[in-house]
């Protein structure tokens, strides 16, 4: 008898969707998420294109669906260590990393007030700091604090444990391993921003006013490091001009060969963020093709009409910094004007693309990958499916569609296994 339950690896928008859709059909579902919270990358997005609506709205509905559905089980700070068996009957071991905060946590926040240590805030891509014991973000689900072991001073400090009235701090928590038996597996571990440090000619890491598109999302977010104000990182001052460099690492033989699908629309959206705060700022987008497919064309049209952006057809070659003013010079070949143009900007945003998480960490099972590392669904091991951006670079709506489709594939595996 096959196991009808389904394991979903990754608790971002694709994983959450696959899990919820399968659970709402009636299947028992397990979500394994490596972060201390569910929601993945979309929790870090300020607004979705094309509606410019907050991702937390849809996430909150998804968390409600989880709260109301007894068939969903989730593990945060967890990772899959091994998979054995076959379609209909997989044995999976899952490692649960220590949170150092147990289920007693009420979310009251006293520990953070007492904590003397700080850590770079990964949620904001290191643009600010949190205490070593922290709530990942205000919408965090579950609303439980977590301790960063690398920053924590440990049991000899123990201030958090002293102030916690609920015995929720356990500085000696050890990793645990659990075993799951499932009928099918959905691998939805998503993507990482392509490492902009590899794009040395654009100065990322050397010039602080060169940021990436994901950092832009945090900067524009009310709950981000600047409380939503878009400023120059070097001095926190207002900006008068910004350049967006498209295909920073995508569509590039030396980096990601595929197109990352979302960056054009993301930069157009970022242009609306800038325009809302700076009615007079100069906004330039350097591009190869503007890929606003389908009905997203309306968004492209609207941004062109309303945001007064300059589109420059040409791949930027280099970014230099004027050391005295920290202004940046973008050097690019303008293919329409047929000349090399140099323009100065206060801020440069690299539209870095999507590297699949499987480019770095493979599935512990026999699977196939394409040349950029994207996971090929169901190719070598029937019953293990890829969903969302680990399979194709996708925008959110497409990833949700794909995850919904993948939930059905996983259900089919559990049906097949029964015969």
């Amino acid at each position, binding site marked *: 008898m096959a196991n009808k339950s389904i394991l979903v690896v990754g608790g971002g*928008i694709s994983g959450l969707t696959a899990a919820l859709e399968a659970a*709402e*059909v*009636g299947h028992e579902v397990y979500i394994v998420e490596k972060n201390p919270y569910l929601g993945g990358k979309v929790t870090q997005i300020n607004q*979705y294109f094309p*509606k410019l*609506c*907050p991702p937390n*709205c*849809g996430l*909150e*509905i998804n968390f409600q*669906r989880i*709260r*109301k*559905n007894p068939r969903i089980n989730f593990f945060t700070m967890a990772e899959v260590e091994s998979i054995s068996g076959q379609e209909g009957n997989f044995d999976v071991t899952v490692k649960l990393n220590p949170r150092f905060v147990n289920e*007693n946590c*009420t*979310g*009251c926040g006293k520990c953070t007030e007492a904590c003397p240590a700080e850590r770079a805030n990964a949620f904001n891509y290191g643009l600010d700091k949190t205490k070593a014991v922290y709530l990942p973000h*205000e*919408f965090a689900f579950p*609303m439980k604090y977590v301790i960063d072991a690398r920053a924590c001073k440990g049991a000899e400090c123990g201030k958090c444990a002293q102030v916690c*009235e*609920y015995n929720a701090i356990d500085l000696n928590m050890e990793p645990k391993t659990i075993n799951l038996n499932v009928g099918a597996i959905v691998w939805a571990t998503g993507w990482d921003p392509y490492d902009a440090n590899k794009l040395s000619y654009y100065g990322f890491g050397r010039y602080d006013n060169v940021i990436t598109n994901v950092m832009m999302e945090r900067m524009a977010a*009310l*709950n981000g490091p600047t409380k939503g104000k878009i400023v120059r990182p070097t001095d926190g001052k207002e900006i008068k001009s910004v350049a967006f460099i498209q295909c920073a690492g995508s569509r590039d033989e030396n980096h990601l*060969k*595929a*197109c*990352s*699908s979302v960056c054009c629309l993301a930069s157009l959206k970022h242009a609306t963020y800038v325009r809302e705060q700076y009615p007079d700022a100069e906004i330039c987008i350097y591009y190869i*093709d503007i*890929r*606003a*497919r*389908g*009905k997203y*064309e*309306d968004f492209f*049209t609207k941004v062109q009409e309303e945001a007064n952006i300059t589109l420059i*057809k040409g791949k930027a070659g280099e970014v230099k910094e004027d050391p005295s003013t920290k202004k940046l010079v973008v050097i690019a070949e303008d*293919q329409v*004007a047929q000349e090399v143009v140099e323009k100065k900007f206060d801020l440069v945003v690299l539209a870095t693309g999507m590297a699949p998480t499987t480019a770095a960490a493979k599935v512990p099972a026999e699977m*196939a990958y*394409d040349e950029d590392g994207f996971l*090929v669904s169901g190719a070598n091991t029937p019953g293990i499916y890829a969903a969302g951006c680990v399979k194709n670079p*996708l925008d*959110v*709506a*497409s990833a*949700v*569609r794909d995850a*919904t*489709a993948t*939930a*059905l594939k996983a*259900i*089919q595996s559990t*049906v097949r296994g029964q015969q």
Partner: protein
Amino acid sequence: MEKKIAVYICTGCGIGDALDVDALSNVALKEYKADICKTDAFLCGKDGVAVIKNDIENEGVNTVVVAGCSSRVNADVFNFGPNVIVERANLREQVIWCHPADDEDTQMLAEDYIRMALVKQKNMNLPEPYQVENLSKTIMVVGGGFTGLTAALESAKAGYRTVLVEKEDKLGGYVGKMYKQVPLKPPFTDLEENCIPGLVKAVEEAGVKVYTSATIAKTAGGPGMFDVTINQNGGTVEERVGAIVLATGARPYDASKLAHLGFGQYENVITQSAFEEMVAAGNMEAGKVAFIQCAGSRDQEHLPYCSAACCVESIKQALYVKEKNPEANVYVYYKDIRSNGQYEHFYKKAQQAGVIFIKGDVTAITESDGQLAIEADDKTMGTTSEADEFDLVVLANGMVPTAAFGEMIEEEAEEEAAAAADEPKVVGPTIIKSNMLNLEYRQGPELPELKYGFPDSHYICFPYETRRTGIYAAGVVRAPMDMLSAMEDAAGAALKAVQCVEATAKGEAVHPRSGDMSFPEFNMNRCTQCKRCTEECPFGAINEDEKANPLPNPTRCRRCGTCMGACPERIISFKNYSVPMIGNMVKAIEVPEELDEKPRILVFACENDAMPALDMAGINRLQYNPWVRIIPVRCLGSLNLVWINDAMAKGFDGVLLMGCKHGDDYQCHFMKGSELAEIRLSKISETLNRLGLESERVRATTVNIMDYDKIPAMLDEFAEELEELGPNPMKDFQ
């Protein structure tokens, strides 16, 4: 059920320090005669939960108020099974985290929230699921093209009886006529053989019941019980199905409208589909071919949207030419090449094969001696490009959804009456009579259109959030897309169809109130046939008989309560959500006398966005006005105007509605809720004026989940304006 009510007040997280807990207990025990009231310093801890469980098991408690943190947290901890009603009084996020400790006003607020929770419980019952007789779990797919065949196969493979209805005599649709197809798998570089013959065979082997040369004359009923009349070969067949996937595809944009590109004028200017058939028939001999992208698409005078598939389709067709003759000259004129994702590899393959891509708008096509010349404004060379001696020009003429063809239903809804009363009109959904489903729905026979004829969902996070429960559009009828996307979309829609029949079988709602077992019940004795419920339901769930009596279809219902809010006679209610329930909560709030100088403001907040935003204000310890009392509603659409009357009669100084954004980029998950509430409000101002109350006392505002930082100022400003108006004159008359 006989209720035995117990109140548990958590004193943890600072609640016990900030509030007089004994006074709170008195409200529960003395004022409201709760059977049990206990306090605990750590109610969500093991011992605290054990106390509640013990009372349920040994004391017969079946109705529990947890006064502590928000229902956003610890939902699992305070879940005591389906037979125990649990209500949360949010003393943490919405009282002590956003109001000063040890303060008279804060205490009054907390006491009111205990009262409201108790009254709410007294007025609610456990829902009993709606059960369908002769429920069908069959999935019906309409359209036998690539998407429809895929959806049917996916549904059958999941173990569901599936029927497929195709209007042509043969399955396969648009893709069926193609020579080859774009790659659907890595490495995304190679042309693939046409998949349709294999797909048709798989569909047959999977046991799908196929009706060809068949159309749908009528679809009655709702999820789990759609009764479909299929016309086939002059006869009719009846099928009872549980859910429907609409996969009727698209048609190429009418090329006769593209005369400026020479179509109709020169016979060697042809469409993408004509080229496909030419190659499939082995009749393509051209040695120099031009493909013109965005022929109709991305053009405000034709199709403002991008048709999404044409770039990769033209790359494929360019490769046909190169496959046949590697020396052939192939040009592609484009605005942007949109080979998204891994189709970048396919684009590169064409470039390597020698296809020449020119970014530019075609300005003229002329013919001499049977050969075509193209003049274009070459954007990358900065010049006018002229090329001639083309044997063939292929127009990538985009797509129009089949749902867009047909007469548009005019708003018949009491236009004259509305105009006469000079009232804002409730705008119903736009429905085009495309003759595909012929739904027996009061609001019209097809899926409501979103834009450009596509019946898409408006949502990024929920692309299958359909406005007709149990009917899911898939493929190019839903939105412009390429084959790879359509393949996924087919499976996605099939999943939603399967999920809908399973939920319906259990009597549960589907998204966004998934699992909700309540449904609206109508007390027909008092119905005045005003039609508001049948017109305003965002999901078309309510039909009408000839006498305009509402005929509810609970399986179509999404449980938003819009009908309940619309009904002037207040005859619609849910077991656990009703007009009296909220009305009594309003009445339970203590409104101090005018001399006390403690105004009261009532807020009705959408539970999806405004409520979490209010919680976030608390989590961020933002302080706001203590005169405010907040009542969450399923959707502002469920707001019944009698609640405003109740509030005014009770002596509230003002009422504020917090709902989602409406308009083109609306964020209401029930589509129209906040908009309808505002329209209703505009109708109440006259009544208020008659009572000697200023209409400014009642207003609506838009709050999204990230507006929490604006909430304190929003409430303070309203409070200041109310102070200027002075107290509600009805205050001391109660």
